[in-house]
């Protein structure tokens, strides 16, 4: 269980996160919505322990995680940063194997056990055939799947993702989100930031919408992805339409010329 209690964070006198409280349980797939600069990434960084100077509490299974060493944090949380390419090119298998780092002693290399964990993670995501491929030369979608396998190899109960679908084509976006949903169903807590309310409706079971560092709405997708709420969140005239007996909801801007003026 991930509990955030009255989380407040800021730097240089600017408040970035203001009194955020939230609880996610095992099996939840949480989408964090919000405008650019609303504090979504900052929220992830606070949970990750990169931003330590927050007030309030972040608890995992009742334990305050403030000040925990990064070795300890890695046992609780795996993280997938926004799409980027490392300076050296590793094979997919080498990348995934790095995920097992928390099980490898400081002055050691991975053993057979970690190799098996990495192989298993590749299987879970279904990319064993990419093992020897060069990570730098993969397509954006394959890269994201590789990072997902790496996060699985870390075997941590919480998975944080910073806009995992940015830069992916439609098919790969669906593939990645489908996998994330599966992982949540396997018992992980998955939390992603996203700019796409439609994705969050289709795949996640909980939504937080943040505006100016404050939680604007918190609830289930059915409660949050509505015309009223989306209008307030994004500040443009729009309508949310329901499709296929409410399996899917889509945001459509109400008047095209408004897009230009906003």
């Amino acid at each position, binding site marked *: 269980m991930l509990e955030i209690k009255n989380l407040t964070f800021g730097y240089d006198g600017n408040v970035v996160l203001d009194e955020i409280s939230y609880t996610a349980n095992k099996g939840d797939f949480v989408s964090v919505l919000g405008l650019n600069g609303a504090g979504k990434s900052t929220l992830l960084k606070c949970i990750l322990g990169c931003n330590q100077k927050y007030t309030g509490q972040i608890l995992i299974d009742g334990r305050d995680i403030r000040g925990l060493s990064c070795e300890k944090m890695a046992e609780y949380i795996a993280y997938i940063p926004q799409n980027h390419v490392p*300076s050296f090119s590793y094979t997919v298998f080498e990348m995934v194997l790095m995920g097992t780092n928390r099980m490898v002693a400081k002055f050691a290399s991975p053993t057979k056990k970690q190799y098996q964990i990495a192989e298993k993670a590749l299987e879970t995501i279904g990319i064993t055939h990419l093992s020897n491929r060069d990570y730098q030369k993969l397509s954006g979608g394959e890269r994201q799947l590789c990072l997902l396998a790496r996060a699985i190899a870390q075997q941590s109960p919480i998975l944080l993702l910073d806009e995992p679908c940015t830069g992916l084509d439609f098919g790969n976006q669906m593939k990645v989100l489908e996998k994330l949903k599966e992982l949540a169903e396997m018992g992980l807590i998955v939390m992603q930031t996203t700019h796409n309310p439609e994705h969050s409706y289709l795949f996640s079971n909980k939504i937080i919408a943040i505006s100016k560092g404050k939680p604007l709405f918190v609830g289930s997708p059915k409660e949050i992805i509505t015309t009223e709420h989306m209008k307030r969140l994004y500040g443009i005239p729009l309508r949310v339409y329901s499709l296929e007996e409410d399996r899917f909801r889509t945001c459509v801007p109400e008047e095209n010329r408004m897009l230009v003026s906003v």
Partner: protein
Amino acid sequence: MNPHQTRDKRTKGILWFGIGLLFLCMVVSLSFGRYPISIKDIIGYFLSFQMDIEPFWDAQTENILLQVRLPRILTSVLVGSALAASGASYQCIFRNPMASPDILGATAGASFGAALAILCNQGLYIITLWAFIGSLASVALIYLTGYKYGKGELTILILAGIMIKSLFSSGTAFLKIMADPTDQLPSITYWMMGSFSGISFAELLPVFVPMVIGLVILLALRWKMNLLTLDEAEAASMGVNVKQIRMLVIFAATLLTASAVSISGVIDWVGLVIPHIVRRTIGNDYKNLLPFSLVFGGLYMLLVDNIARNLMATEIPIGILTSVVGAPFFIWLLLGREGN
């Protein structure tokens, strides 16, 4: 079988082949020189340590083997390994495949420190210590200018390296003016060119220990070094204490550079060329990259030193030879990057 397993097996095979080749070359190198010694004599002599063999070689052979050739060959292999390993490690710290002890100015810093110690008539232990301080200072400067402010960009890194190099070499030039022209000046000058000639076990010993310490640290951390090349927050989220491991790697790599420079002077390019060839052929995984760099760095230096001492009647300073090989290679690398 998983595809990565076949790859791992092949890699292991090549490594053992390299180690075998290195030993073979060491034995063969013992026979080369002004005074040729047959392989049979060499093998017989070394077996006689373990077995009862009636010496069929003369005392002079024994003397040359033990006092002249063996220390020289061991030193050249160690220095080659140390420079290649420290190059590979600096590349990890700076997240940049173009980093190496000479480009970063670490060797220039070490030269300055060592020249300072020679000027003060110090022994090899103190020379090594000052070389270490000098190269640590230059790496720290590079880290601040090229990495912290330049965000690790290649051009800024290379420019910062040029700046620091020129800073330290003008410092060394100044020390040369101060040096006693009959005694200290030739010793600084000759030593700066880089050479393995006249090295004895007594000279090897003071740098042997720090070299082994540096190599053991790097070998122990080699797999973790992969994670250092990732984004900092990303590595931390996987449970790496980035600051601590980075400091350890910098310490070990600088120790290796300084030890190499204090025994053999400035030998450029090895730290760049060898890790690069390994990256191109074996891959970037430090678990393999480091051992391969050790073996092939040693092998490369041994071969170049054989050329240095056998090609002409007078010995060619080895630093000249490695630059002749290394500088064109570097240009080729830069061109290759543009092509990508």
